[in-house]
């Protein structure tokens, strides 16, 4: 496995993992102090 292949695998994995993250919907004001 060369460097480019490793980089591609890392990018793909991070994108896939990030895509699985569903942030919790937040109700009310978005402003922390409100």
């Amino acid at each position, binding site marked *: *496995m060369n*460097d480019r292949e*490793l*980089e591609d*695998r*890392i*990018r*793909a*994995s*991070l*994108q*896939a*993992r*990030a*895509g699985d*993250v569903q*942030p*919790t919907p*937040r109700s009310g*004001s*978005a*402003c*922390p*102090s*409100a």
Partner: protein
Amino acid sequence: MTMGAQVLAFARSREEEDSFAEVFNEHHRRAVRLAYLLTSDHHQAEDVVAEAMAKVWVQWQRGRVDDVGAYLRRAVANQANSRLRRRYLERREASRRTGDDRGVRMVDDQTVEHDVVWQAIQQLPDRQRQVVVLRYYEDLSEADTAEVLGVSAGTVKSSMSRGMARLHDLLSDEGAAHQGGEA
């Protein structure tokens, strides 16, 4: 404060809130994803972003935030780093008390490509993982990564070098083991 001044202050506050809400909605999802990649924990990721957003909001109100995305990314990295340090110390203490280091390791049997790579990334020391995530998820340069993490470019370079070497070893081993298992 007169009634008129109060109304004006309220109107300005509402305007700021609406404006910030737009910014919040634009950046929140990406920020949570970055926080998750840095902490490997959904709940901590949400907390990290909430804390980071609170900091951004304070500075936003003072007119000190030019680039919200960059400011938020730095705040997320700082908050995540604080939590990682705390978690490391807690695990080290638990390990010292029990003589069991299984809590420090993260092992998974999943063989799906992305999960295999993700498991390897999670085995990196915190600094190396942070650098890899910021480089390959956020596409930051070494200089930008150094600024976000508050470390020198040399530290980023060496962490990246060690991290990539480690990932290469881990994933090559995985491939060899996988092939061996199939033989």
